C-alpha cells in the first residue's frame, strides 16, 4: 500500500496562503473610506457590467477583489442571507458585523478544509445613522477579519495604498476630496486613471432606505475635476 507523502501542517498552510496571496495580489486593487455623509468604495475596474462593488442590503455594501466567480458567489450568498434575515426578523436587524462574521467563518473553513483556498479578499461596509458610526470590515482569504473605521485597501499593493491613504485622510472630508485621494492612493501619482477605468459607489446617509448608489462615469469625472454635487439634505 502506497503511503501518502507527509507534508508538515506549517508547510501545507503556508503553501495555501502563498497561493491565495499571489493570485489576489495580481488583481487590481480597491479602496474604501468613510467621508462626511457615508462610505465611499472606489475600485479599478474597466468593465461596466462585471461589478466589484455591489449592494447587499439597505445600509450594507460588498466589494471583492481576486477571482471574480468566487467573490460573486460570496456576494450572492450575502444578499440571500441579508434578505432572509430581514424577512425573518426585521430590516433593522440586518447588520454588517454578523454578515462579516459569517463570511469569515465560511472563508476560514474553506481555507482550512479544502484543497484550494478562496483567491479573494472581500469588504463589507455599513453606513451608520450618524457620522462616526460607519463600519468597514476587511476579510482576508483565510477568514481573518480586520475591522476598520476610517479606510482600507484590498488587492495588489494593499499596504502601499493604505499608507498613502493614511497620509491623505482627513476626518469628515467631502465625497470629492475622498474620491480624489482614493484615486491618488490607487495610482501613487505614477499613472493616470480615467473615470472610465473606475468603479465608484457610495453608501450615503442621505439616500433614504437603500443607501447604496453607484456613481456613474460622468459624475466621477465631475468629482475628480473638483465639482462637488449638492448634498441631498441641502437640496431638499
Amino acid at each position: 500500500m502506497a503511503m501518502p507523502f507527509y507534508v508538515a501542517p506549517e508547510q501545507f498552510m503556508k503553501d495555501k496562503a502563498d497561493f491565495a496571496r499571489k493570485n489576489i495580489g495580481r488583481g487590481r486593487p480597491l479602496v474604501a473610506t468613510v467621508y462626511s455623509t457615508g462610505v465611499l468604495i472606489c475600485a479599478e475596474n474597466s468593465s461596466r457590467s462585471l461589478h466589484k462593488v455591489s449592494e447587499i442590503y439597505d445600509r450594507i455594501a460588498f466589494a471583492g477583489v481576486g477571482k471574480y466567480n468566487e467573490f460573486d458567489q460570496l456576494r450572492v450568498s450575502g444578499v440571500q442571507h441579508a434578505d432572509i434575515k430581514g424577512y425573518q426578523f426585521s430590516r433593522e436587524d440586518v447588520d454588517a458585523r454578523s454578515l462579516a462574521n459569517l463570511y469569515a467563518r465560511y472563508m476560514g473553513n474553506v481555507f482550512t478544509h479544502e484543497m484550494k483556498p478562496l483567491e479573494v479578499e472581500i469588504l463589507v461596509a455599513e453606513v451608520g445613522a450618524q457620522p462616526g458610526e460607519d463600519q468597514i470590515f476587511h476579510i482576508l482569504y483565510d477568514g481573518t477579519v480586520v475591522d476598520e473605521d476610517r479606510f482600507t485597501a484590498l488587492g495588489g499593493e494593499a499596504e502601499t495604498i493604505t499608507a498613502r491613504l493614511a497620509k491623505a485622510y482627513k476626518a469628515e472630508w467631502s465625497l470629492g476630496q475622498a474620491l480624489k485621494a482614493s484615486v491618488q492612493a490607487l495610482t501613487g501619482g505614477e499613472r493616470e486613471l480615467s473615470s472610465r477605468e473606475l468603479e465608484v459607489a457610495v453608501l450615503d446617509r442621505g439616500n433614504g432606505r437603500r443607501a447604496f448608489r453607484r456613481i456613474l462615469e460622468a459624475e466621477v469625472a465631475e468629482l475628480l475635476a473638483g465639482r462637488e454635487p449638492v448634498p441631498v439634505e441641502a437640496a431638499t
Partner: protein
Amino acid sequence: MTLPMFPPGNDPGPNFNEVLHRLGFGPFPGSGPAGAPGAQTVPGRLPGGGPGMLTVPGGGDGRASAQPFQVTHGTTICAVRYNDGVIMAGDRRATAGSAIAHRTMEKVHAADTHSGVAIAGAAGPAMEMVRIFQLQLEHYEKVEGQALSLEGKANQLSQMVRANLGMAMQGFVVVPLFAGYDLRRAKGRIYTYDPTGGRYEETDYHADGSGGRDARTTIKLGFKDDMSREQGIDLCVQALWQAADEDSATGGPDAVRGIFPTVATITAQGFERVPEPEVAQAFGRVISHLTSAEVNRTPPPVDPDEPDQGRPSKATPAKAPATRKAK
C-alpha cells in the same frame, strides 16, 4: 444562521421566494420543479366547508362543533391609467365577517420604485404576499444587478397567486392588482389577476375586491383618455366613494378620525403617495358634487290622503317615482 451556499446544480437563482422555500421558510411554495404549485400547503379541504370556516374542537361533550372562523378581509382597490402613468387607490377598511377589523389598513403598496401592488381578499396571506413580492423584486435587482421588466414583475406575482391556490380553495383568496410605469415603453400598465394566478393586462383601468364592481362601473362611466393627475385622482376617489356607498365592507373617508383612502401615482419619477390633504380635497369635491345633485332634486309631493307614502297605490302606479326622478 449560516451563510446560504447552494451548489451550482441546485441554485435558486435570483428568485427570493425559491431561496425561502429551499431553506424551509416560505409560505408560498416555489415555482421550480422542487415545488409544484400548491403541493406543500394543500392539506386537503378542511371540514366545516364554506369560505373561511374551520372546524374547531367544541365544548365538554367531546364532540367537535363547527364554529365560524372569521378571516380578516381587505376590500376595494382600483387602478386607472392617466397622462403620466397610473393611479392606484384603495379604501382602508378591513372586515372580519360583518365586523370592522381595522380602519387604517393599507392596501396599496409600492412594490419597488416604479410599480405598485394593491390587494383584496384575505388580509393575512395578502399582506404576506405583498411583503415577499417586494423582497422578491429587490432581491432580483440586487442579485442580477438590474431590475426586472414590468412584465417580469407581473409574472412573478402571478406565480405567487397561483401558489396560493390551495389556500384560495379553502376561502383564503388573495386577488392583487399590479400596476407600474414601464420605463422601456414609457407608459403606465395595469395587470389584474384571478385566484388561480391568471394574469390579464388591462388597457385603461380595473378595480377589484368586494366593492370592485361598483368602482369599475364608476370608472367606466368617467374614464377619458389623457386625463390629468387631478382628473385621475378625482375619478379614483369617486369610484371608491361609490363602492363604499354600495358595499358594506368598503370604507369611505372617515372625517372624524381623519382617515382617507390611499391614493398613489406611479410615473416615470416613480411610485409616490398622494398626500392625505390632497385626497381629502378630492373627496370634498366629490361630496359637494353629489350633495348639489341631491339638493337640486324636487322632493315628491306629499299627498295627505295617501295612506301609504312608501308604496305607490294601484290607482297611481308610476306617479311617485316619476316625480322623484324629475329635476
